[in-house]
């Protein structure tokens, strides 16, 4: 049985999210926001990344988990966690690197082997450059980021592979209301090549973008929503299109202390298609739901 979100329920989710934003906006007006400090925008949009690159000399340790849940049949749960060190060596550049850990719990899913495993799955590095900075007269900020990643465990199926990915992304955000309401936008291009133990080589690429809206409802709490459109191709030059999907969901950011915060997000696939398969949703290249939970400590 295919669990689809009916159009009526979909509209309910959107209306609910908009309602929450209006309620939160009213709550925020009740609090004096003039005393709030500026906020770092990098993590306030959920899966969408803001333009922030931190402060010169700042260092941060982060545990960032992304879970993916639900395929067309059987049960599917996979997570990938980044154990990440990031630092900002100048007022324009941020560098991050770390190890990847993964878990897979898969049973009865078409085209995937049953598997229950926990593994150290690879490593990554990220370089971020602030190309356009926000000022009191310019509300837009833009950061360019490159993230090479090497994996020894396949992200989707969990089998042993050699996988090389090179994510390039533009992170932009707009301050709509001073220190209060922000819009975030990402543009993503993510080519990768995978060599299986059997000697096969698979090439693919993901391309897409997102839009997010986040409202600061207290000096240390930001809530919002985001929507992602993602396309999958079996070629790095984006020619062999295989399917696409739209993911939608709420986001939360909480600053516990000036040096410690968390961010959480949940995305549900609300629309998708697989080329050559007339079913609703794309559950081959993407998942029904995904979640993100990130904790960070600055020092």
């Amino acid at each position, binding site marked *: 049985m295919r669990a689809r979100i009916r159009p009526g329920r979909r509209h309910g989710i959107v209306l609910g999210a908009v309602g929450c934003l209006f309620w939160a906006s009213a709550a925020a007006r009740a609090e004096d926001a003039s005393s709030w400090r500026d906020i770092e925008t990098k993590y306030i949009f959920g899966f969408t990344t803001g333009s922030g690159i931190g402060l010169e000399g*700042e260092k941060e340790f982060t545990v960032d988990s992304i879970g993916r849940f639900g395929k067309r049949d059987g049960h599917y749960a996979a997570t990938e966690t980044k154990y990440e060190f990031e630092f900002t060596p100048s*007022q324009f550049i941020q560098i991050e690197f770390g190890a990847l850990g993964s878990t897979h719990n898969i049973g009865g899913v078409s085209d995937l082997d049953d598997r229950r495993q926990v593994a150290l799955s690879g490593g990554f590095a990220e370089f971020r450059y602030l190309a356009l900075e926000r000022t009191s007269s310019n509300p837009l900020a833009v950061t360019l980021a490159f993230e090479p990643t090497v994996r020894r465990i396949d992200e989707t199926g969990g089998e042993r592979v050699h996988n090389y990915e090179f994510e390039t992304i533009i992170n932009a955000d707009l301050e709509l209301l001073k220190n209060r309401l922000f819009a975030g936008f990402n543009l993503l291009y993510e080519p990768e090549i995978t060599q299986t133990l059997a000697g096969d080589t698979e090439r693919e690429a993901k391309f897409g973008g997102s839009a997010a809206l986040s409202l600061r409802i207290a000096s240390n709490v930001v809530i919002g929503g985001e929507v992602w459109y993602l396309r999958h191709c079996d070629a790095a030059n984006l020619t062999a299109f295989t399917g696409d999907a739209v993911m939608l969901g709420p986001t939360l950011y909480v600053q516990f202390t000036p040096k410690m915060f968390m961010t959480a997000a949940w995305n549900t696939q609300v629309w998708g298609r697989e080329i050559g398969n007339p079913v609703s949703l794309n559950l081959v290249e993407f998942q029904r739901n995904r979640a993100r939970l990130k904790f960070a400590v600055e020092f």
Partner: protein
Amino acid sequence: MAITMRKLILAALCAIAVLPISPSQAQQATEVQVTYSKGQFQPNELRAPADKPITVRVKNLDAKAMEFESKSLRVEKVVAANSEGVINVRALKPGRYEFYDDFNEKARGALVVQ
């Protein structure tokens, strides 16, 4: 594909190599001074010219450490009790850049760039 990936990585590294990554050293920096005393910045509004690097000299006269921090200036520096800290800031566009003591919620100030 492997060649394409290598080209992409090479292009990215070349792009990073030519980006400006630190405050311009070619121009003479404008120095501004602020004193931190009794948990307050004095003065709490500093002024500096636009499009020139800025050096902020912070004198902490209090008996405990403070942290000069600003999200919009993208700097932070811990200044020990009864000592001085120097913070180099890139050339800035005109605007108002707030700063504060990260250890003291009430201590705030701003750098006005014109």
